[in-house]
């Protein structure tokens, strides 16, 4: 323990500067927010993550957002346990039919104003899973404001998208 404390005093933080913007995501956000100028309170967003059928790779990278390298909370973004406390639903997976109702109910339980982010190729409708068991995209079930692609999306891509969402949403008010 002592060694860790001394190291903490002597070493620089591992946390990295925020990533640059992703133009495609900014363009999508600008369009969405023009169509619906919704208010956010303050400059922070609470995120409720919903796994709607992912293979759990997306969850691993979403988890990584909280490690010291990405440190999501310094941007005013935090994960919350209940949709009642959330501004943003971060949805992964192709939406399995067995998860459709749970996703709809989570969406309905989230107070307005709210945003939905589809994270990962499956959620964005360009994944691997069709067939009898899957709907195929988040957009087919609830309206989506931002798509973050990747299989899985890297923490950097997730961070770019979420930070941009927060800043543009605040600016649109």
């Amino acid at each position, binding site marked *: 323990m002592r060694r*860790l404390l001394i190291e903490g005093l002597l070493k620089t933080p591992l946390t990295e500067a925020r990533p640059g913007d992703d133009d495609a995501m900014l363009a999508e956000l600008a369009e969405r927010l023009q169509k619906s100028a919704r208010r956010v309170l303050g400059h922070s967003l609470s995120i409720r993550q919903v*796994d709607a*059928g992912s293979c759990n*790779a997306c969850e691993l990278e979403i988890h*990584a957002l909280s490690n010291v390298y990405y440190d999501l909370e310094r941007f005013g973004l935090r994960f919350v346990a209940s949709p009642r406390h959330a501004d943003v639903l971060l949805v992964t997976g192709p939406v399995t039919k067995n998860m459709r109702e749970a996703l709809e109910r989570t969406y309905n339980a989230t107070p307005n104003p709210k945003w939905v982010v589809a994270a990962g190729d499956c959620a964005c409708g360009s994944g691997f899973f069709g*067939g*009898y068991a899957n709907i195929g995209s988040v957009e087919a079930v609830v309206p989506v404001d931002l798509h973050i692609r990747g299989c*899985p999306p890297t923490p950097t891509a997730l961070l770019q998208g979420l930070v941009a969402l927060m800043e543009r949403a605040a600016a649109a008010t």
Partner: protein
Amino acid sequence: MSYRATLLELGTPVEAHRPWPRVVVDREVWWRAALEVAQGHATLLALWSDGREVHMAVLDEAAGEVSIASLACTNGRFPSVGRTHPPAVRFERAIVDLYGLIAEDATDTRPWPDHGRWGVRHPLGAAQACAAEGLPYTFLPAEGPPLHQIPVGPVHAGIIEPGHFRFHANGETVVRLEERLGYVHKGIEGLMRGAPLARAVQLAGRVSGDSTVAIALAFARAVEAAAGVEAPPRAQILRAVMAELERVANHLGDFGAICNDASFSLIHAHCGALREQVLRCSNAAFGHRLMMDRVVPGGVARDLGEAGAANIRALIAYIRQHLPELVRIYDRTASLQDRTVTTGILKPDLARQYGAGGYVGRASGRAFDTRRDVVYPPYDMLRFDVPARTAGDVDARVWIRIEEITQSLSIIEQCLEKLPEGAIAISVESAIADAAGKEATMLVEGFRGDVLAWVRLGAGGTIANAYIRDPSWLQWPLLEAAIEGNIVADFPICNKSFNCSYSGHDL
């Protein structure tokens, strides 16, 4: 006589199946095989169907032999194995839901992956359209005052996969936990049918993202065995490097997350940083943080350069420098140990009965490891220990992970030393095209335990059928047993110490 010898004497081996015998048996022999398993003479690895036959893969632990018994389902029926051997119950419920076969005299006839939402019944058998309004589901009862029920999920409070947990509690104490899974059922068995090889490989790599290397490896090895080809030596070693990096990353994440569930966030933060370094190193070495789609039939998709190898060596040194301090803190913090020691005990008898793999089995006295006991290259030329404990609690599962990280670092080092020059892949297309109808079953050690893959090749370089059994199938039911008598508040830490895959199970 060994289980395999008896099976071979009483049944007819399938010529097309490699490398272990798959033996077609009649109902009576099927029933006898089920009894052997129920009596503990052999361990059930998996039970699945292709629509026409049911297949029961069994491990004879003493002999280190895998054998598969297959029964043709005349009139769409087969004698239930779960009736005498409870670990088979969920496999059978899945077979019934997907294929419409009937498990005769089954003790639990409730649906499993089918939640009544697909708009079709028996989608892989004689599919019938039906309403998609949801099926009622009756949880098993617990009787006696003053019990109350706590329903949890499918959407959980953290960043976790979906599943439903139904607790019966007496005050704070859990009397019964029952899981209801299947929420992330993606129909992978169905999507595999007739899939071109490249698509099937991608699907296998997405059965459970945290085990993408291990499952892709099991699948690739099965395809190679069916086609009668082998990956070149350099690829075999690189596969082991990837598999061990995956194990280290997951164990580091779990070690931190288990401590976090005891509100000890210091270890979580440090393990999170170490895990991130493993993923960055994997990305630099192989071009993907989780190394998805890097193991392919015939070899690997990406070579390891000098810089990548140097990165990995530096990573090993870094972990060796920093992990021991975290382990010391874990070992010396009484408030943390208070939450993990004697919590969520899995009894060795149950671990043996269910053939629990990985840290779940090894923490409860079942020291089985495919890498040593059903060995495959390159582990036959590597030195490593398989840690085992008998306490069976959360603490033991933490220690197994810590000890396995040390072993994996050593394995990676040995691999880098032995890495031969040469090709990283061979072309498999023509061999696969010539091998229509050939089959293979393979076992590979993932971070959770043994992954089983069965493949039957189709015409024109496609996959006719494939089945993948994640280790979670045999671990999920044990979590229900381990939590009994613990307090509800200890469920998250018990659950994390098992860390079963929802996606890998739901398939």
